[in-house]
């Protein structure tokens, strides 16, 4: 099934290569520019959430504090996995630019799997914290922690679904427009989500409260 998709897609791509995309004043693609702006806006979103957490992380009167619940080795492992997924995303983008659909699909799938693994790790972590007595409404620390990391988790989830959908669209040859660019856009988003996690991991987990 993938093989036929590869052939069909190659033809499709050739057509667009001739086409050469649209003229823009700056030569930048509209889509990419929009994605950058969106990510710029997302920076402020996470900025707000991180600020909230930083303000509230010490506020857990008579309840569990951050350093009492963290499991740094585990979170380090899952952070590393998310980082690796950025690498596989890069490979996917490179393959897409080579118009190698098969390899693109492989790396997109691996990225999606690693992303799912990360979210699974987060679900595991949340469950453990909850069992240890840290509910969502237990303290300001817990509310702001779950909100911040939960928001990030939702972003990863959306990213994984996007990745899987792109794989599906490539297989079915249903991408309107420049395939490599679509993969690249999803890649931009994915890298952004990764970078935000590095920030969260450093500020939330590594710097002692």
């Amino acid at each position, binding site marked *: 099934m*993938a*093989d036929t998709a590869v052939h069909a897609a190659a033809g499709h791509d050739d057509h667009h290569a001739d086409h050469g995309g649209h003229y823009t004043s700056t030569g930048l693609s509209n889509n990419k520019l929009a994605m950058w702006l969106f990510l710029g806006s997302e920076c402020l979103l996470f900025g707000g959430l991180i600020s909230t957490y*930083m*303000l*509230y*992380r*010490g*506020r*857990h*009167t*008579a*309840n*569990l*504090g*951050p*350093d*009492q619940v963290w*499991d740094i*080795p*585990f979170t380090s*492992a*899952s952070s*590393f*996995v998310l980082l690796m997924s950025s690498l*596989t995303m890069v*490979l996917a983008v490179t*393959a897409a630019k080579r118009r190698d659909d*098969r*390899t693109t699909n*492989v*790396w997109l*799938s*691996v990225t*999606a*799997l*690693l992303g*799912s*693994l990360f*979210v*699974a*790790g987060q*679900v*595991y972590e949340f*469950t*453990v914290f909850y*069992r*240890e*007595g*840290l509910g969502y409404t237990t303290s300001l620390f817990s509310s702001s922690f779950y909100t911040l990391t939960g928001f990030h988790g939702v972003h990863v*989830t959306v990213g*994984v*679904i996007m*990745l*899987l*959908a792109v794989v*599906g*669209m490539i297989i*079915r040859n*249903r991408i309107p427009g420049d395939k490599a660019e679509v993969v690249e856009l999803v890649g931009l988003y994915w890298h952004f989500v990764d970078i935000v996690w590095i920030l969260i991991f450093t500020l939330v987990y590594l710097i*002692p409260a």
Partner: protein
Amino acid sequence: MFTTGTKLLIGSAGLAWLAAAVYGVAQEGALGTIGLISAAVALSLLAGVNAFVRDSNVSATDTEAFDTSAAAQATARRSLWPLLTGIGLTMLALGMATLPAIFVLGLIALGAGLIEWLVQGWSERASADRAFNDQAREVVADPLELPVAGAILFAIIVYAFSRVMLGMSTKSATVVVFSVVAAIILALGVLVALKRRISVPVVTGVFSIGLLAIVAGGAIAGLNGERDIEVHETTADLAEANRCGTEETEADSHASQTVAAKSNPAATLIYDGSELEIDEVGDDGQVGTITLPRSNPTNVMFLNESEGEARLVLELHPAVDADGVAAGPERICTTLVEDGGRQIMTVEFDRPSFALEAEGVNYEFVVAGSDAAVEVIVP
């Protein structure tokens, strides 16, 4: 002019009428007669219908029928959806008898199956061109299928794998398993990407096996249950168990020693090893008593400047009702605070100080295991 089929039916109908008459006269049985008459009526009706539609025969001159008649349509293609609908129905029944979760899953499977069935049926009648019909199906179904399939796959992995992790007996095991699974995925990715000769069925097969393994692992782990995760002790537990002493407890391990700069406490209590000094706005270096508001949660900061560890305790002396049940906790305390460490305590007083005087007690901040104390006046 009658077709062959019509002739047969007309003959049968006539025979049935005859038999009914004979039986009715000869046997005098009402039931049998009614049965035979019914058959005769039915056969007559069928004969009439058949005569009218001419035994569904297509006239050779009716060219339109070549395209529009059912026989001219492409045969229905293989379809997964009746199966899914069936599974959905079964689960629905099963769910009603056993678990509501299965019922809901059945409902979802039923809905998904029916919708897909409808879409496929619609698309197969879209035109005579099979390739085009497939594309038409995709135009309608892709917006649903792609994200939903992605989301389901994602949910399965996340749920199953997190069960596996929760089932691990130790924390270090989770790290190992997590890393190993990630490494396997990566390695497989490299393998498939480099070895271009690996065919699609193989990849699909490996992927399915992997998925199956995770689901199976998740199921087993789910049935086995989670490892024992103990509820962490907190200072609230300490106060309840009257353990606000000098010994180190679980609540004290890894306890925070710093407080955000913007906490804006009403007062800071500084312990220097022998005395509790009060640092209050507009009122510096006061010793002995502090006035704090009634019925208002107030933040008080504890700063330990003694050589060792210290724990601040507030004795609350709650009102006791007729049944001897206290209106609130006896006391609240911080965790053990290291030298130079600080911690916030949120306090609230329900009764004014003079109400306690009658009982011969007062509100008091004390450092556990020392004589340092500050009396709280609540107006």
